[in-house]
């Protein structure tokens, strides 16, 4: 591996339809090539992942008559991590008279993303959102209803209209259950073959296009090749690279990273959203951080002791010695500043030594004043379930003492780079949902992640994948023993054997924890050049140590979770290096990417629109050298402007 990275002159074309961005999607849909229904069953599509994007794409393509093979490492499609989303799903259906519209949505999302996402794609999100709600409610998601029978909405995350559709605090779960049912319906019809407990470990590229994947059956250990005319990756985000994150413990980047190593460019890997109201890490054994709904900030006040190292219990600290730093710094938005700003402010307080809790790594979220003003009953009615969950996790009573919260790695805006049609830089390889990178720019708005996964899965990929397949009618799938397939198979087998036989001393989890510490410190909520350079060295060292000292043990021919974890951590280590490189490379602050060197006089994020109105799409050469390609961004509907929450 070399130090440093290079920048290529290559400007990427995202194939955005020319002309008025608002009508772009309609025009593109009209242009897409179609496949005769009789030919469809001869065309095979592999879909990896069964979350909202994967289950949707697999079910919709199966319905259309294509031969679909769908893969998940879970035991059941319903377990995909879309299931854990709480708040809701945005859709500018604009039925109310609150001034919502497709344009308003685009403005919110583009601005919220700090002008680092693709505007035309956001227009598609907004346009198709209407059908997403219709479809999901039809296939069984019991959206909350008004007493008059209409869909209920609420407002969410710094948006001034009410466009978030929800099912209590379990929207992701309900959408995920509905989507996996739709997928299972196709399995029953025979149009989709579902492979559970099958993990994708490599991509097969032949003749310059994606033609298959290599998987390991997690139960039997069998490594095999599956070939197809197109491959869709809907394998989610990589926030769990930080070890402690709000993601599931098995969420990983292996599928996307392996695709990247086979040539798919990776867009803005350093764009990671930290959720301000996660629960802090409170013990060395803790396996992840739990997310508390953002809605708590509506009534809770966030503060830290004014004096660093204050040892007193929260309730013993007098009002005068409390610093309500969000209210102080952002009087206009106060405790409701957007996620990135709130997380950064909390991080600054913790770094300055004013953090609270046994590990001094959290801030208070206090309901004392709200309880005094509204009464305990009202607070219980609004947040009772969240308070119970908090007590459940921490053993503390938030009615009596303030909650302790801390920023937690949550959503990755970065991911595989794709064009407007969701096709990556490897022809025939498509991406959907959080695994991709086109919609959210440098910061995602609340309730937009379920939407982007659903739009990709149900209403984009089922149109754009056939457009690609139309050119392959009459072409057979790659032979399973083609040289490219055998090479990929061999690579996976070698790596698996290496991991199993390495005579090291440390569990994969040890490296994962250590990687998390390095990234948190150097490439977390805020980043500095010195910190990033140090992190880069440490990550590279840790990567080398991993291959020298990891210990997996056990056998490869049966369930071996240690082996699964080892492969995932190995990929995280490589990805982390690229994240740090990207963060170093992007010499500006934008959205969730905050470089301490690039701030206003007041310490706020300072974008550099001269140089950085673009997407960094990274290539990693076979020897591990990083090359940045650039996709310039243009904004026609939303003029460039500075976010200001003061």
């Amino acid at each position, binding site marked *: 591996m070399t130090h440093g990275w290079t920048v290529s002159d290559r400007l990427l074309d995202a194939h955005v339809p020319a002309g008025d961005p608002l009508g772009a999607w309609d025009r593109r849909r009209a242009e897409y090539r179609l496949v005769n229904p009789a030919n469809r069953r001869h065309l095979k599509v592999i879909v990896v992942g069964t979350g909202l994007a994967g289950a949707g794409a697999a079910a919709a393509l199966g319905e259309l008559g294509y031969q679909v093979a769908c893969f998940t490492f879970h035991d059941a499609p319903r377990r995909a991590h879309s299931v854990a989303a709480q708040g809701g799903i945005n859709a500018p259906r604009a039925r109310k008279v609150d001034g919502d519209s497709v344009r308003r949505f685009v403005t919110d999302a583009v601005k919220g993303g700090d002008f680092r996402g693709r505007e035309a794609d956001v227009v598609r999100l907004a346009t198709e959102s209407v059908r997403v709600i219709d479809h999901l409610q039809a296939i069984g998601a019991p959206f909350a209803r008004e007493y008059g029978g209409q869909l209920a909405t609420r407002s969410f995350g710094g948006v001034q209209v009410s466009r978030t559709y929800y099912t209590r605090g379990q929207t992701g779960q309900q959408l995920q259950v509905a989507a996996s049912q739709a997928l299972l319906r196709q399995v029953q019809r025979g149009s989709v073959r*579902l*492979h559970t407990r099958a993990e994708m470990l490599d991509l097969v590229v032949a003749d310059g296009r994606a033609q298959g994947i290599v998987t390991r059956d997690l*139960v039997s250990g069998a490594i095999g090749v599956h070939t197809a005319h197109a491959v869709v990756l809907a394998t989610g985000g990589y926030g769990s690279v930080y070890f402690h994150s709000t993601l599931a413990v098995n969420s990983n980047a292996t599928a996307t990273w392996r695709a990247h190593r086979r040539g798919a460019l990776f867009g803005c890997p350093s764009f990671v959203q930290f959720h301000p109201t996660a629960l802090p890490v409170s013990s060395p054994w803790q396996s992840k951080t739990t997310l508390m709904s953002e809605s708590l900030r509506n009534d809770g006040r966030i503060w830290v002791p004014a004096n660093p190292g204050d040892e007193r219990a929260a309730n013993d600290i007098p009002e005068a010695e409390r610093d309500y730093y969000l209210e102080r710094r952002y009087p206009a938005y106060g405790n409701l500043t957007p996620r990135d700003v709130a997380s950064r402010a909390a991080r600054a307080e913790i770094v300055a030594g004013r953090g609270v809790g046994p590990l001094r790594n959290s801030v208070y979220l206090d309901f004392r004043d709200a309880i005094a003003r509204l009464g305990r009953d009202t607070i219980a009615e609004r947040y009772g379930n969240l308070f119970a969950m908090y007590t459940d996790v921490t053993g503390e009573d938030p009615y009596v003492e303030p909650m302790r919260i801390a920023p937690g790695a949550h959503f990755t805006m970065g991911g595989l780079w794709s064009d407007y049609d969701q096709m990556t830089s490897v022809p025939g390889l498509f991406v959907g949902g959080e695994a991709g990178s086109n919609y959210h720019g440098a910061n995602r708005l609340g309730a937009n992640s379920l939407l982007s996964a659903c739009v990709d899965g149900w209403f984009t990929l089922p149109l754009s994948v056939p457009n690609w397949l139309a050119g392959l009618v009459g072409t057979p799938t790659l032979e399973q023993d083609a040289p490219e397939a055998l090479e990929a198979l061999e690579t996976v087998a070698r790596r698996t054997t290496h991991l199993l036989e390495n005579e090291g001393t440390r569990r994969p989890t040890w490296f994962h924890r250590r990687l998390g510490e390095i990234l948190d410190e150097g490439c977390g909520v805020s980043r500095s050049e010195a910190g990033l350079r140090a992190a880069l060295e440490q990550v590279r060292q840790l990567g080398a140590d991993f291959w020298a000292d990891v210990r997996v043990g056990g056998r490869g021919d049966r369930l071996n979770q240690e082996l699964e974890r080892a492969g995932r951590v190995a990929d995280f280590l490589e990805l982390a290096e690229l994240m740090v490189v990207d963060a170093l490379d992007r010499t500006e602050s934008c959205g969730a990417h905050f470089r301490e060197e690039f701030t206003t006089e007041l310490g706020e994020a300072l974008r550099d629109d001269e140089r950085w109105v673009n997407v960094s799409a990274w290539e990693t050469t076979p020897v591990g050298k990083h090359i940045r390609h650039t996709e310039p961004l243009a904004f026609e509907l939303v003029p460039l402007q500075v976010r200001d929450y003061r």
Partner: protein
Amino acid sequence: MVQDMTALREGQRTRATAPFPSTFALKLVMAVTGVIFIAFVFVHMIGNLKVYGGPASLDSYAQWLREVGYPLIPHKGVLWALRVTLLVSLVAHVGASVILWARGRRARGRFRRRRSSGVTAWAARTMLLGGVLILGFLVIHLLDLTIGRAVAPGAYQPADADGTIHAYTNLVASFSRPWMAAVYVVWMLVIAVHIWHGWRTMAQDLGATGHRLRAVWATLGALIALAIVLGNALIPILVQLGVIA
């Protein structure tokens, strides 16, 4: 088997086809025959209350049972119709329960559930044993007061040639034996538990999902069980106390 599991996971095959007769149908049989038994036991209990009216009251009731509907229906016609219905129900109820029990064991597999979480689960666990006990008591009861053999009291008087029945005398003779009185009281308690849980399960098996219906149903079940225990078990106790003689 590993290959089998992969095939199962990938939907290449399913483990089995639905059994015949279907569990759903067997549960319905249990529920319907259960209703018949509860109705029978309840009506029987009401008949038993005639004992408080003295010998003539009970004996004439027994007599009436044999003549009801005459001349449209032959002598003992209704009685035998009831007996046949009950017998068929009994066979169906017991048969279905045995099949269901076997299916439950097979579905659970090698590792039995060892812990029970409350009174409902306890009542459910007693159902099989309770059923066997009830059946045993029934045999004793028929021998004792209907057939008049084996466990019947020494003073048992069969029906006269003209059809006169000595129900009251036989009942008092039987219940005067403390051990037999105790058997009947225990029997009633077992029946009460069986009915209480059976009644609850019946609501489930007949698909009662409404909150009010379920609440009313539960109350009704408890009342019926209570009425049967009180109405029936009091008789041997009162005989023992000498109130009925």
